[in-house]
């Protein structure tokens, strides 16, 4: 049998990370060797040091304070997701409805032309028009989103973010409409990209006021790690190359 190392005794203690055969070998060796048992007991003594430490416990009102901080962060999401249907006229900003109407009109032209005209050129023109309208609206939407994210990640205090919360809320609704329109127009990639933006917009819309350093730092990290601003600019420039 191979000599039993201390590291193996640690794994044996936790009954984890050793195969059954080695565990059985160590069990047998422990039964047979007082020296090995002494080493095992020494390990148990060392590990008991961790158990002897007082268990960290929060203050008595921890749950209450925790909930006080959590509630405002999760309540708006609940309201937005459940109490308000995303298509509810009362809550979708007027600008988004105007944009959506234009999109529906443009997509309708394409649909109508496709159904009622035998002229393939007319069909192609209608499709292209619908696509251009969608692209222009989404590019504008992405510019607003880019500005919003830039403001959020570059602000040190809570106030600039607080000012952007309303804008973020309105962009969530527009974002959903444009994602839907892109999906219906057959542009699944754009639709998916817009869907990816939604959690960030939700985060910005639900930032506490004043925003805390932690949430701002978290957003910065996320934006940096995902290269989000680069992605937004790239899609924006693809949709509207004249503006970039």
């Amino acid at each position, binding site marked *: 049998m191979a000599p039993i190392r201390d590291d193996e005794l640690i794994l044996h203690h936790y009954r*984890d990370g050793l195969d059954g055969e080695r565990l059985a070998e160590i069990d047998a060796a422990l039964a047979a060797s007082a020296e090995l048992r*002494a080493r095992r007991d*020494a390990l148990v003594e*060392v590990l008991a*040091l961790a158990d*002897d*430490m007082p268990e960290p416990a929060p203050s008595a009102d921890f749950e209450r304070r925790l909930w006080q901080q959590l509630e405002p962060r999760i*309540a708006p*999401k609940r309201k937005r997701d459940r109490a308000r249907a995303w298509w509810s006229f009362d809550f979708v900003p007027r600008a988004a409805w105007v944009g959506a109407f234009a999109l529906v009109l443009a997509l309708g032209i394409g649909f109508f032309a496709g159904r009622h005209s035998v002229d393939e050129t007319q069909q192609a023109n209608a499709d292209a028009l619908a696509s251009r309208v969608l692209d222009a609206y989404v590019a504008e939407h992405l510019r607003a989103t880019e500005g919003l994210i830039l403001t959020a990640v570059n602000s040190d205090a809570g106030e600039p973010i607080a000012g952007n919360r309303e804008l973020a809320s309105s962009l969530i609704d527009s974002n959903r409409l444009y994602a839907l329109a892109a999906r219906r127009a057959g542009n699944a990639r754009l639709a998916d990209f817009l869907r990816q933006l939604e959690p960030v917009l939700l985060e910005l819309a639900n930032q506490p006021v004043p925003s805390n350093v932690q949430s701002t730092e978290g957003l910065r990290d996320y934006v940096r790690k995902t290269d989000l601003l680069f992605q937004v600019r790239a899609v924006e420039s693809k949709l509207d190359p004249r503006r970039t």
Partner: protein
Amino acid sequence: MTEAEERWVERARQGDQLAFRRLVEAHARALYTLCARITRDSAMAEDAVQEALFNAYRHLAEFDGRASFKTWLHRIAVNAALEQLRRNSRHQTADTGADSDDSEDFLAQRADDTPGPDRHARGEEIRRRTEEQLSRMSALERTAFVMRHHEGQSLEDISAVLSLNTNACKQAIFRAVRKLRGALEPLR
């Protein structure tokens, strides 16, 4: 997971804030203990618990029930605690390497050291030294050790949460135990 908890999870998933509050109340203290053991700082632990619960709420739809809700929540909390440590890098110990006495086998030395009444009388001193040794561990070592020793998580699960391979995970735990042993050193 109890039946009641299952119902709360399902209702919270549908946006029921009261159900989520029940989950928070049921798990907050254990999450705090876990995060405090990892961060060694009360304020960071509280922030980590809050972030963990917020993230859990946002991702409730992704909880598939393969692990228990507690396990799922604790995994999120481990990452939240590590994130707090990253943000507060001053709390990170620079001592991420091996123990000063990094001999492969160290238990034989302890085996010769029979506990005596003096040791018991010096319980406070041992606790202070244990605190020191726990602080000497790197965040990764301490997290792996806390997850294995206090939380009873398997090496496989710990590796997955910490994005380590199993061998690196084992090594982190071995280093943590060696450092912990240092708390008894001066008493020999």
